[in-house]
């Protein structure tokens, strides 16, 4: 096996910082979505639960993809 990686550690640290920033943004969006959905649910509005759950799932899949990319650049 060749010990050389595609990116140096310095480069990977920068990529990781960018990814963490994006993931934090998405997680904050999910938090807002959860509080808004809970507020709507407690207020008797049950119609938003399905689209909100779908949007949150998409956010999670996006985060999962970014995490996979972090592991991929380590190879």
């Amino acid at each position: 096996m060749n010990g050389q990686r595609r990116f140096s550690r310095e480069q990977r640290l920068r990529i990781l910082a960018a990814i963490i920033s994006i993931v934090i943004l998405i997680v904050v969006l999910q938090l807002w979505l959860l509080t808004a959905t809970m507020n709507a649910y407690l207020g008797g509005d049950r119609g938003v639960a399905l689209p909100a759950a779908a949007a949150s799932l998409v956010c999670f899949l996006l985060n999962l993809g970014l995490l996979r990319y972090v592991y991929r650049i380590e190879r």
Partner: protein
Amino acid sequence: MSARDPDELTIPPDGRPTAQQPRWRRDFPIDVPQDQYVARREFSKFLVLTSFAFVVGQIWILAKSLLGRRPAFTGTPVARIDELAVGSFRQFEYPGPGEPKLLVRLSEHEVVAFDQRCTHLSCPVHPQVERGLFHCPCHKGSFDLATGRPLSGPPRRPLPRVDLELRDGVVWAVGVTERTS
């Protein structure tokens, strides 16, 4: 002989490159820069786990929305209108025991009723008719007496409104409307 990664500052005891080391050695590196990198990677993993927890929360709300049953309301007599003076109030339980509501006579022709539980943390609210509001003593929240809408403090949702009907001088509770604004 493979070329060694220039980022690897220390050589493991067996001399093999980091990629061929056991998992525990890769997750707990000796080199400070690599340790910083691993810490950030683990932090991103924790964030993704938090993201998953939010999805679980959303699915829980969705399941409650789909499977939860709405109560079937039946009409219940609450009070005779002539027994309730203008500016006075009466507590009653509707649609069942343990669900306190407040009936308030605002004027000669206006009677309103709301859930007595604060929409913040379910503390009982108290009507202050002279100030035109319901007051929650737990966190100093207040709601408008006529509409049940939040005026101050932590509550953000209005008090659920009890639907009323006047039949032969008797006020009947016929339903409860939950609201978001």
